[in-house]
Structure formats: C-alpha cells, structure tokens
C-alpha cells in the first residue's frame, strides 16, 4: 500500500505517495519528473541510475524510497546548486565543474550512462580533489556494487573530464558546509 514519504531532492522537500519498497529510481522519474537518473539494468550492475544520497553514490534502481527519507538526495539536475551553494564567489548560474568538464571534453556519445558517470566523478572529487589516473580508473571499475559501464566506450573522455574538473575544483576554495562538493 502507498505511504506518504517526504524526500529531500536537490535541496527541496517533496511529499509523495508510494509503496515504501518502490525503488527511488521510479519515484524520482515518475513522481518528481527528475529524469537524470535512468533505468539501465534494474539490478545495480551498470550505474546508469546512480545518484548521491548524503554525498555517497547509491544505485537508485535497488534503493527503496523509504530508506532515503531524512537524507539529502542529489541528481545531476541538482549539481549546479550543490556547487554554487558551497562556493559563494562563483556565478550563481554556473554549472558544476564536473558538468562543465563533461561539455568541454565532449564526453557523451549516446549519453545514456553519463548521468551516473558524473555522479561518480562528483563523489570521487569530493573525497579526493586530485585523483591519480589509477584512482580514477579504480573509482569507475572496482567500487561496489559494480563497474560503471559505457557501451559507447567513452572511458578515455571521462578520464580527461575528471582531470579537468579536478583542476577547476582545486582552484576554487569551498565556502559552504554541505557534505560533498
């Protein structure tokens, strides 16, 4: 049966009615029309549905909506605000450095997996603003529950974009207090 749940998504509280076991992916996409995270495999094996919950990457296709109440959910739609709210001196319309790097490096081909790829980059750079090549590869390959897969094969562009975003993030000091950059 449907319960009322309050979810904080991209800085705003939303009241929704959903069966508590409903995966966050379906709630975000169909109830809140937040379509950045996408259905790839439904079993946490590809990463297309990745989002941040309290700053940590989770696979929204297997995460019950009820488990995320009282936590801060961030999708790619919320990355600009996440960035500008923690960096007072940047233009309030600026994209997150990870998004800007994804544009500058022309990363997406079909682009279906890239929302999840950017989420991993944001999490990685929040914990390690200057990752080595090996650390970037490790974050996308060996971190549970599965590697982030790209069938178009954009891995080289992703690596370049993470390195570019790393430079931007390292150059601009943080002013806010949120859990991730």
């Amino acid at each position, binding site marked *: 049966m449907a319960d009322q749940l309050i979810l904080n998504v991209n800085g705003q509280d939303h009241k929704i009615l959903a069966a508590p076991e409903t995966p966050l992916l379906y709630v975000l996409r169909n109830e809140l029309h937040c379509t950045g995270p996408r259905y790839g495999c439904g079993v946490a094996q590809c990463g297309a549905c990745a989002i941040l919950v309290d700053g940590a990457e989770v696979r929204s296709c297997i995460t019950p909506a009820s488990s995320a109440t009282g936590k801060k959910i961030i999708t790619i739609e919320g990355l600009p605000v996440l960035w500008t709210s923690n960096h007072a001196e940047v233009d309030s319309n600026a994209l997150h450095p990870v998004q800007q790097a994804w544009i500058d490096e022309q990363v997406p081909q079909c*682009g279906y997996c890239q*929302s999840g790829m950017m989420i991993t980059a944001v999490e990685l750079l929040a914990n390690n603003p200057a990752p080595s090549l090996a650390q970037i590869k490790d974050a996308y390959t060996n971190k549970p529950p599965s590697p982030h897969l790209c069938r178009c094969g954009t891995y080289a562009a992703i690596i370049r974009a993470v390195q570019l975003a790393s430079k931007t993030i390292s150059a601009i000091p943080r002013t806010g207090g949120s859990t991730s950059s």
Partner: protein
Amino acid sequence: MKAVLPTSSSAPSMEPLPQLTRRGFLQSGGALVVSFAMHPLSAQAATATPSTAQSMPAASWIELRDDGKIIVRTGRTEIGTGMSGFYPQIVAEELCVRPDVISLIMGDTDRTPDGGYSAGFLSGADNLRKVSAYTYQALLGLASEKLLIPVEQLTVNDGIVIGNGRQVSYADLVRNQRLDLTVPVSGKFARVDPKSWNGIDGLDGLTVLGNPPTRPVNKFKVVGTSNPMPGIPDKVTGRTQWTCDVILPNMLHARMIRPTALGSTLITAGTLDKAIYPNVQVVVKKNLVAVVAPTEWEAVSASLVVAASTKWTEWAGLPTSAKLSETLRNYKWEKPSEAKGDLEQTTSALNAATKKVSATYEQPFVKHAPIGAFVAVADVRDDGTVTVWSHSANLQGLRAQIANTLSTPVEKVVVRWLDHAGQFGRTTFGGDGAEGDAAILSQILRRPIRVQWTLQDDFAWSASSPGWIEDIACSLDANNHITALKSSFYSPQSNDARIVGAVLAGMPNLRSKPDYWIATEWPYDRIPHRHEEVFGMPNLGSDSPNGVGMRGLIMRTPGQRQQNFALESLLNEAAVEAGMDPIAFRLAHTSDQRLIELLHATATKAEWQSRPSPNPSPKADEGEQLHGRGMCLMTRQNSCWVGIAEIVVTPSTGVIQVTKFTIGADPGKIINPRQLERCMLSGVVMGISEALKEEVTFDTGKITSTFWSSYKILTMAEMPEIRVVQISRDDKGYGGGSEAANAICPAAIAAAFHDATGIHARRIPLTPSYVVQQLRPKAVL
C-alpha cells in the same frame, strides 16, 4: 548501407538549376522553403503548384527564415557519433553561414523529408550538401535581382551577400515573402516487401539528384573544424527528453512476460489477486503476454507474480553455445549466397604452391548490448492513427513495419524519434525494439502504452550478431609473396528485423531471406588470385513452435568485422610463415598509396620496431608475464584503417591486458577532427571488448547470458593507453569515419597473442579460460 561519395571537384551540372517559386507576399515573417519532387529536374517547374502562403510543407529539407535562423531536417538520427554536429557543418559550408544559426530536426517521420539509414551518414551528408548547394544558388539569384549585380560578382560571408560595395542578408532576401524551391530526388519510402532480402524495401530513403555547383573541398572553412556535438549540454544537465521520459495522459506502463524458452508457446497465462493488484491487467494475444498498470512499480511488481504462475510449453531446439561451431561445421550448406573472384585460377594457384597457410577462424554470437534496455511508447487511437515514440535508427523502416503489423495504412502512422542508449546497428532495418509490443498493446487497449523491457528481456529476446566460422587459405611463392587466397564464410542470417512482439502475437511481420553477403573490401591488389564465398542459413531455432528463434541482425561494421578478422588473421599467420615483419608483409601486397601512407604513420606513432613474430624475448622482466604486439588493417567505405595492439599475457590466470593501442584512420576529408577522435577512441574500447570478453551463451532452450555479470564488456580499468593518427585529404571525398574503429582490434590483439606466446588464437573472445586452454602443453601423440 552503400557509400555515396560527394564529388571532390565542383564541376557544375549542365542541367538547369531549380527555380524559386514566389507564393505571394506576406505582411510579416517570410521564409525560403526547400522541399522535393520525385521526378527529373527538367520537369520541376510544373510542380510548383500554389498553396496558401502560411502552410509550410511539414517535411522540407531546409527552411531559411527572416530572423536569420535556418531549420534543417533529416530522416537520419544521432546515434552517438556526432552526426548532429556534422550535418549542420555541411549545410553551413555550402550556404556560407555559421553552424550555430542552424537547428536540426532528426528522424521524425512527419517532420523530415528523406528517411534512410542513420548509419548511412555519407548518403545523408551528400543529400544535404546538394540541397544546400541548390539553395545557395537560389539565394544568389535573389540577391542578384535585389542588388542588380550579376551573380558572378557576388560573394557570401556569414549569411550576407556582398557585391560591388553593396550587401544584403539572407534574412532580408526572404523577408515578407514565401519562396519555394523544389529539388529533384529519386528513391522510395520504406515499405514491407516480401521480395526484398530483409523483407523491407526503401530503407535507403530518398537521394537528391543533380550536380549543383558545390564549394571546393580545399576552400572549406566549416567542414574540417571541431564543431561540438549540439546535444551534449542538455544531456549533461538533465534537460534532454529521452525515449524513456515520454509520459502521455491516460498512459499505462507495461512489462512483458516472455516465454521460458525461445521457442515455447503459452499454456496458461498467470493471474493476479485483484485485492492486491486492483489496477493491474494481464493482456494476452497468442504467445504475447503483458502486464499493464497505471504506475510503473505496480507493473513491475505484478509482472513478477504473473511470470511465476504463467505456464509455457517446453522447447529445446538450440544446439547450445558450446556446440555452436560444430553445428555450423555440420550444417548442410548449399550454394553460397555470394561469391567473388576466379575459383579455378585461385584453386590451381593454391594447389601448385609448395608453401600454404590455412586456418579456420570462429566467433560466438555477440550482442549489441545497449546500456539501457529498450523502451517505447505507442498511442493507437480510435480513428486508426498511430503515434510511436522510438529510438530506432531507421524511423521510416519502423513506421512501415508498425503499419504492417497493425494492418493500418502507413500514412496513418507517425514515428517520433528521441535519444536513447546506443545500439550499434540493431535497428538499422527499423524494428527490434519495444515499439511493436507497445503498438500491439495500445491497439488492444486503446490507450497510450509505455513498454520498458528489462535487461533480461533485452539480452534474451533481442536479436544478436550471429556466431560464424570461416575457412581461409593462401599460398606463398619462393619470395614469400601470396599467390592466391581463398575464403569460405559460414553464418546464420544477419537480416532478421522482425518485430518480436508481432511474432509472439501471431501478427503480420517481415519475411527475410537467410542469405549472407561478402563484406570485405579488398586492400591487397598485389595478390594475383583470390576467391571469396559466403554462406547463410536460417536462424538457429527458426522452426520453433512460436517462430522466434535466435534472431540474427547486423551489428557495427557488419559482416566486414567478422570477415576482416579472418582475412587479417590469415595475413598475420602468413607473415609468420614468411618470416617477415607483418607491416612489411602488408606493404608487399598492396599498392594503395593511402593505405601505405597510413601504415607508415600509424607504425611511427606506435614506435613499431620491424621484426617478424613471435617475439624473440617476450619476457620483458623477471616475472611470468609475456609481452606481444600485433597489427591489422582494413579498408571500408572510402576509408583506410590501421590498428596496432600491445598486450601483456599472464599465463597462470589467462588474463590479457591490452596496454597500448594505436589507431590510424584516413577517411578522406575529415569533417570534424575532434568528433572523429572520440569515435576512434571509443571504437577501440568496443573492439577490445569484443576481442577479449564478449560471448552470448545459450543452452538448448534460451540465451543464458542475460546480466552484465554474464555478458561482460570492457571496463575503464581494462582500457589501454590509446594513440590516434588521423590523415585528412582534400581530393578523396568523404569516407566512413565513425563505424569501423571497433573492427580493427580483434585481429591485432590475436596477432599480439601469437607474438607473446607463439600460439595462433583462432577464436575470439580471448577469455582467460580460452587462453589458459591454449597455453596448456599439448599432449604428444
């Protein structure tokens, strides 16, 4: 799929250019609209029938508006390779405008003029180049009238026509007018046709005729620059509307309940407890079973319950993937689908030779494996009109198939295109997505239906690129020159684009012929005799009770990916037999100057040291790891490709790591160096994935590799350092620049495996278990 090359010189046609028709003056607005006529140019004037000034033809090629904006329409779609950037570049070049004033509409069957293959970029580019060239001439004519200056004295810069110190913009030329330009075309729209090879005709779409004066390649300003791909900012910020994002009023979500085996038929459909699932409905049509619900999660939850209680007949008509090669070997092949070359001379040269190299190469079934399982929305209305939202790569082909399956006139069907996960040729012939399921369910329920396949649905029930075997042999003379080469390729068909939902529902569908084709483009003109033949057979399990079977379809670099692997692997083995460096061996067998130049450039970039294989000192350090290098080349669609792989083999685990891959391409005139580089880098990832990992497994009834944990693809950590070489030419037209990068990897990696180990690997993928088995000492008899 055939390449249509633009003329590299701009020799103008002797035919008259199409003339503008003015359909009256307007109080406001104004545009020049370029559409088409299906007959020769000389008759076009008669077609300029007046219409009301406001009614724009929906499917014009180009609309040039009085605000300076230009709308360009093409039936092709963006398949992830940057075409949505290339088409505006090509139009901008001919019209002398900036690409950013151009908006591109792609794919939609009611809003684009020409249809055609999305993968057929070359023919799409040729169409738009000619349309733009005709438009440019018409605009010069208008400007000449307005400025009273002869056309020959006019130049255009950034949409401003200039002559004799006076100027007028394109926008001013069309202001307060409605001007029509009709360009000549040939071709036909896609229709289901049992006589054609894959059951559907007209997939090429329309071709623009004539030979208008075009800008000389060496004067290009826009083509050849790295224009960004237009859709990327929206994809990165979450603004793109994907196929999976379509929500219609009154829409139901569906999940499919597929049979337990590929050939099973329905005994009884499962049921639901209405107290628990009051809003959910089970829909059955013959062997098509679905669950529909107002919310997606209800559909997902209910589908698990229904699937568990649905009963299917047993079926075990597949040979198993372990026995695939044996099955292909034992099949009673009849005459070849296609043969090329002189069999008698080739056979006699082979028989006369003292030194011969022969081998059989093989590969299992592989999958297109999109990252997102397929999805579609369909709305079949009471008046018989149908709208389908799809990410097919041939929308007019899909439209014809949907109309055929629903027994509806094709004119009543509209297919709209939206982005979705890359699919690498799976929908080049139209269908093979969830569109058929959605349209059938919507026709039954008379409501908009969204069908989302699961990953397992997609892996188990979509078409695959079939497994194959090839016997190939060549003879060497005393100077180690190849005197003759003979090949025989055997595979199940690769052209079964039937809509799987329609097969299961017993509704009208395509009928294809189980033929294969010679895909090799021959790079070795200095081999005097050759004979190639290819054999096709029906899908495995094609005689099953439900009629589905292991459907085969083309996949990226189709046919040539497979046949070139065998050809290049044999050349590598022959180079070993000759005791020659494999690049030097290639150079001895071709006089293609483009290929020769690219071989040298790629070898230099890879720091290639000339020597024969195997590697005399494969252990670079004290450990057990073995180092090897190998190469491969290919010519395809007016392009040359070279790949050089460096690998490390760990004998105890069987793991191969590709440490460096150098890829060289000469696709004639490079349209966009950066987008080409992206395609080359990513194509190498896909090619290494195929060489090392990819294999569809199946038991006697069904595909068993239905998760990413069982159908493995390359991960980021497994990607090598990749080096790129590009050669652009002004005198060779355009060549295929995005597709083929994957196909040069497997033979280069297999050669590197031999270089490291001294063992010829004649099967891909080179999985750890296969490698360990190859390295095991052979029993001495």
